[in-house]
Structures are given as C-alpha cells and as structure tokens.
C-alpha cells in the first residue's frame, strides 16, 4: 500500500459519497423527480417477455391524474365500493398509527412505527391480491392486516405486549404475525422475508397449489444479500411471487442514494435479473392496485416473478426512536411531488361523485370511534410495564416454542425461573 508509489502519469483518485439534494436548513429539492403524466405508459400483456417492461423500470405507472380522473391502460376500473373500502382502510391505518404513536409517547409501550404516506402500498395491494395469497411484509405494511380485516384490538394487544397478545409478548411492538390473514411474522432482521417469500412461492408451485406470495422490502434494505438471493431464486425457478421494493426515499437517516438510488431506479434491478419490472407511483392507490394485479396475473399464469418499485415518501420519522429533522429539511415531506395517497383517492372518488366531505367527516368520526374503542379494549388487557415483575405473561411461557417440545435444559431453566420469580416477589 502507498500513495507515494511512482506513478507520475496517473491522476489521484477520490472517493465519491452520495449526498441527498437537501439537508436540514436547506430548501427541499425534488427537482430530480420525473413525473410522467398519468396514463402515459402502456400496459404490456401479462405474457410479454421481461424486456417489454424495460421502459417501465424508468418511468412511473400512474393512473389518477392531477384532476383526480383515472386514465390510461393501467386503470383497473374498480367499483366505487372497493374504492371506498380502500379509502376507509387507508384512513384506519393513518388514525391507528396516530393513536399508537401517541400511546408510545405516553409510555404505554416501547416502540412504534408509522406508515404515513405509504398507506396505499399495503392497502391497494391487499385489495388486488386474493385473501389467501401469502404476504411477507416489512414493518410498514400494517395496511395489509387492516385491509384483510384483522382486528385492530389484536394489533394493539401485540403493540402493548399485554396478556391479550397472541405472540405472548415475545416480539417488539408492530412485529405482527397472523397466519389466518396470510401475514407472515415480521422479522427485525431486514430483508430476510423476501427470499422466504420466494421459497414459500416455490413450495406453492411444487405442490401444484394456486396461491401466490408477495413480499415487501424497503429501498435501503435492497442492499442486503437477501434481496439478491430473492431475485436470483425467483427468476431461476419462476417463482409465483411479487417482489415489492418500497422506495420511500429514506432508510432511517440515509437517503436512497446510499442504496444506489442515484445510479438508477430500484425497478431497474429487475432488468439485471431478467425478470419483469415496474416502477409505480406508490401514492396512487389505483396504480398500486393495477401493478399488483398485473404481477399477480403473471404469477398465477406460471410466468414467474415481477419486481415492483413502489415510489413513495416516508412522511414521518423512521420510528418513535427517530427525529428526522436531524438529517433532512423539516418541510421536505410537504414538498413530495406525488401528493398523499389518501387525498388522491379521496379526490378521485369525489370526482366520480362517489364521495364528499360529509361522508369523509362521518368516516373519520366512525374510524375514530373504532380505533378508540379498540384501544380501550386492548388497554383493558394491560399495557407494557417496563419496570415491573407483574408480567402480563406467565413466565413459564418464555420457555415454550423455542422447540416444539421442551428439552430437559429448558425444563430446568423454566423451573429455575419460576423459583427466581417467587424469590423476587418475596
């Protein structure tokens, strides 16, 4: 090693470290975001080869135009009822997030993560998938559970790790799991779920089943090796799976450029693997629906995986542990050029004559009641108490489910623990 070697004819190198367009104190800058007109990109046949989606990897599938009209070949032509359900689900998610965020601030639990601005990505996908298609989510797709009708009170029980928590208080808040609702256990370890989804989809194919899988991963997490494994295996075995990259521009304090987002789109990763890719306006619920449906149709027809970049923006801090004003302009969220998914669907329904302010107000109130009611019910099961021996779960449960059956050493430890607790309480 040396930089003093004799190389007079060679210029000095330097390291490039990507920087976001604006830091705190600077003016938000989204001039780099190209927004193609809604309806402007064609919709290939689902049987089309991967190459026919190359242009889709650099554009944006958009359906709802500035005037609130659904336009172009990707318009999924949904019934007003379904649109209203989606609007409702997104509103539930947003109110739920607000309340649980506040509950954490009130010391009722240890942690919370919102999905504000990204509600369409889960809710519209759930609408486009079959109920028994299997979802492998990250921590920002709580909308899947809401849309599939999982009880809010169950979600809250989990968040509070209380005695109603079906996960026995074992998981960090928001790491839901529910088999019946096709919602795979969220892992704290980023990206691990994506190749698992591929494996699940392969299993479905092996068994001649008809169910497909869908996975979600954040922009930042695409850098993990798991993402590469997922794309490789999904392509090679033509797994019936939808791989969603939720590009919300940030990974905690790192902007998407640290994951390679300044070099090309995340959808373009698909080109590298020879699988179809779509880049979608993630704040346009109809576009999300349409892209998911297209990918699902491909998967169901045994045509293999699709990679979808959901282009969106994380409106709030990463989690309750994070203050985003430390690394991005305070008003950056307000400047996101693709609007808010709830507002956009609301506008669309309004333009269709299927919605109005009164109905929205009524909905808001109804949801408020529901969420409050659920919270009350959940809190009756207890909230997290960080400095107490009055555990919500029997300590014996701590040793269960490590294995199907308790081996001797866990039995011994269980007995020790029971004794310890008795001593502690004494």
């Amino acid at each position, binding site marked *: 090693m040396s930089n003093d070697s004799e190389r007079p004819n060679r210029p000095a190198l330097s390291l490039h470290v990507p920087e976001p367009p604006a830091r705190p104190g600077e003016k938000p800058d989204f001039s780099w975001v190209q927004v193609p007109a809604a309806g402007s990109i064609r919709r290939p046949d689902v049987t089309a080869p991967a190459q026919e989606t190359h242009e889709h990897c650099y554009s944006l599938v958009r359906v709802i135009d500035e005037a609130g009209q659904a336009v172009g070949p990707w318009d999924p032509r949904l019934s007003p009822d379904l649109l209203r359900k989606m609007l409702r689900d997104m509103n539930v998610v947003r109110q739920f997030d607000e309340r649980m965020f506040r509950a954490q601030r009130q010391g009722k639990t240890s942690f919370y993560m919102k999905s504000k601005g990204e509600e369409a990505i889960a809710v519209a996908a759930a609408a486009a998938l079959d109920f028994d298609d299997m979802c492998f989510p990250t921590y920002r797709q709580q909308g899947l559970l809401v849309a599939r009708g999982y009880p809010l009170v169950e979600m809250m029980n989990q968040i509070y790790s209380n005695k109603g928590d079906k996960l026995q208080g074992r998981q960090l808040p928001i790491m839901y799991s529910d088999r019946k609702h096709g919602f795979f256990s969220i892992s704290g370890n980023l990206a691990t779920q994506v190749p698992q*989804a591929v494996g*699940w989809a392969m299993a479905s194919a092996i068994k001649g089943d008809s169910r497909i899988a869908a996975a979600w991963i954040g922009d930042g997490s695409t850098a993990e090796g798991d993402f590469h494994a997922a794309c490789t295996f999904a392509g090679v075995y033509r797994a019936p799976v939808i791989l969603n990259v939720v590009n919300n521009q940030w990974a905690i304090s790192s902007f998407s450029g640290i994951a390679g987002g300044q070099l090309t789109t995340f959808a373009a990763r698909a080109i590298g693997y020879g699988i179809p890719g779509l880049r979608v306006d993630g704040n346009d619920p109809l576009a999300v629906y349409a892209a998911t449906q297209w990918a699902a149709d491909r998967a169901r027809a045994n045509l293999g995986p699709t990679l979808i970049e959901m282009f969106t923006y994380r409106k709030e801090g990463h989690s309750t542990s994070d203050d985003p004003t430390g690394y991005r302009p305070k008003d950056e969220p307000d400047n996101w050029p693709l609007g808010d998914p709830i507002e956009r669907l609301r506008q669309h329904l309004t333009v269709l004559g299927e919605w109005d302010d009164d109905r929205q107000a009524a909905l808001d109130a109804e949801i408020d009641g529901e969420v409050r009611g659920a919270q009350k019910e959940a809190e009756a099961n207890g909230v997290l108490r960080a400095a107490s021996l009055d555990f919500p779960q029997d300590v014996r449960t701590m040793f269960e489910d490590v294995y199907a059956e308790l081996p001797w050493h866990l039995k011994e430890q269980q007995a020790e623990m029971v004794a310890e607790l008795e001593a502690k309480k004494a």
Partner: protein
Amino acid sequence: MTVRNMIQALNDAHHVMMERDDNVVVLGEDAGYFGGVFRVTEHLQKKFGTSRVFDAPISENGIMATAIGMATYGLRPVAEIQFADYIYPGFDQIVSEAAKIRYRTAGEWFVPMVIRSPYGGGIFGGQTHSQSPEALFAHVAGLKVVIPSNPYDAKGLLISAIEDDDPVVFFEPKRIYNGPFDGFFDRPVTPWAKHPDAEVPDGYYTVPIGKARVVKEGPELTILAYGTMVHVALAAAEAAGIDAEVIDLRTIVPVDIETIEESVKKTGRCVVVHEATRTSGFGAELAALVQERCFYHLEAPVVRATGWDTPYPHSLEWAYFPGPIRLGNAFKKALED
C-alpha cells in the same frame, strides 16, 4: 438389512422419507442432477422429479431462506450445504429466522427443515473444507444439532431429523463417509463393510434425536465424543490400554445429559473430545455441564482433547487433527491423581 457406507445410508434415508412424505423436498448446490459432490442425493432427482429435488444457485443464504419459506408453507425441505465451511453466508437465515420463527410466532409457524452438511477434516481439504462449526449452532436456541458417527445412526437420525418439527443442523463427518477412520492415518482404513454399524435396515426406522449411545462400557474414564472422533476415541483408548466408557453423543443439542451424568458419576473422570477448535467449542459446554453436575464425583478435572485454536492447515493436517496421541495424553491427564 443391507451393508451400507454412510453415504449410502444417508441416501437411503432420503429415499425412504421422500417416498413416505410428499412434502419432503431436497435442494442444494449440485444436489440435483449430479446428486451432490459426495453423492448423498444421488438418483433422487431421477426418481422424484426436478420439482422435488433440484440444484440451487451458489447462495447458501438463498438456499437457507427459500428452504425456510418452503418449511413455513408446510414442506419439509432437506437442504444441503456443500461443505460446512460454506454455511456462514446462510448464518443469518439460520440463526435469526429458522431458529426463531416458532418462538416469535408463538407456534403459529415453524420450520421443519434439515440442514445437511459434510463437515470435519481429515481429507486434506485445507482450511475451507475441514471445519467443524457445530458450537456456533449449539449456542443458538431453537436449533437442534445432530452428528452421526456410523451408517446405522446416520440413516436413523436423518429420518428423525426430517420428521422433526424443528430446524435440525445435521453435520456429516465426511472423513468417515467411506470407513470408520480411527485417527491412525498411517494405517489403511477398514471399509464400513467390516463394521457392525454398517448393517443398515432397509426401509423406515429412526434413531431418536437427543439420545446418546454408550458405544463401549468401561469403568476407568468417560470419553464424550461424536462423529469421527468416536472412532478415534475408541482406538486411542485401546492403544493406551484404558478401559474407558466411550459415549457417542449423536446429538449435541439437546444433549443427552442423563447418559453423561450416569457415566461420569460411575467413572469419576471425563475427557471431552472434538475436532473443532478448542476455545468456546462444544467441549467447553460439556466440561461446564459435567463439572456442574458431577463435581462431587470428579476425581480430576474434565480434560478437553480438541483441534487447536488455529485454522485447519493443509500440510499439517495430522498435527492439527486430535489423533490418538493427543487423546492418549488427555486420557493420561484425566487419570492422574
């Protein structure tokens, strides 16, 4: 009953289980068409088709992850890692996922998968074809770790592992695939054919996970070993003229503590043997357990005879390998005082 070497016995276990259970699938690098570089999965693809037996991309991470996904679906994947030395790229999926999914979902999902991998040295494979990483998995709650030492056990334990509803790391001591190598590298190895444990029943049978086997009874000293080292221990004890009790652990998690305790309480002396590096190896756990549970019966410290705390060197293979002399020295130490 057919005489089989370990490869044949393991192959047979696959055949038996794939016939019994449609949900058993096999994947791994070169494991499909070719049947694996050690041929443990030979003929399976031909018989059961490519959608149940297939080659995988060279991504141990992807192999583990997709197998986990398959297992959560309800399949029972048997995934081969070509050499244990190459299991690390898949470590996160094993440790953070396979081992914890049952726990974190309160049993809603579980991962009935087997991770098979040839392991251990003695074949001049250098530092990346010789490792014994069992201790790394023994430390991870949620995994079972099984290491057979002969064809009979190999088949019966693999069948148990496939039927087990928890993830099982199944290490196959490659040095004894073809014969019970006893550590005397300068003598010819007897093939399995001459060994009673190569009499392998046809069809289905199990050897239970978590049960050790007293391979040889003896009053003087308890030797705890597994895999290749069982044979080395037997030969070394014989060479040293010690009437030792040799226990083949077969499973290291959960370890068969009863058999261990009973033996050590009888002999009062214990040597723990493994090929892996010493520091924080599984021998440490065994020594800790034995002294915790048999302290007042012990007449000497528990002695460890292991590989050195170095990578596995190529030309010095037989200096690294814990052979009869190292074991003999350990026996002597345990019998002192």
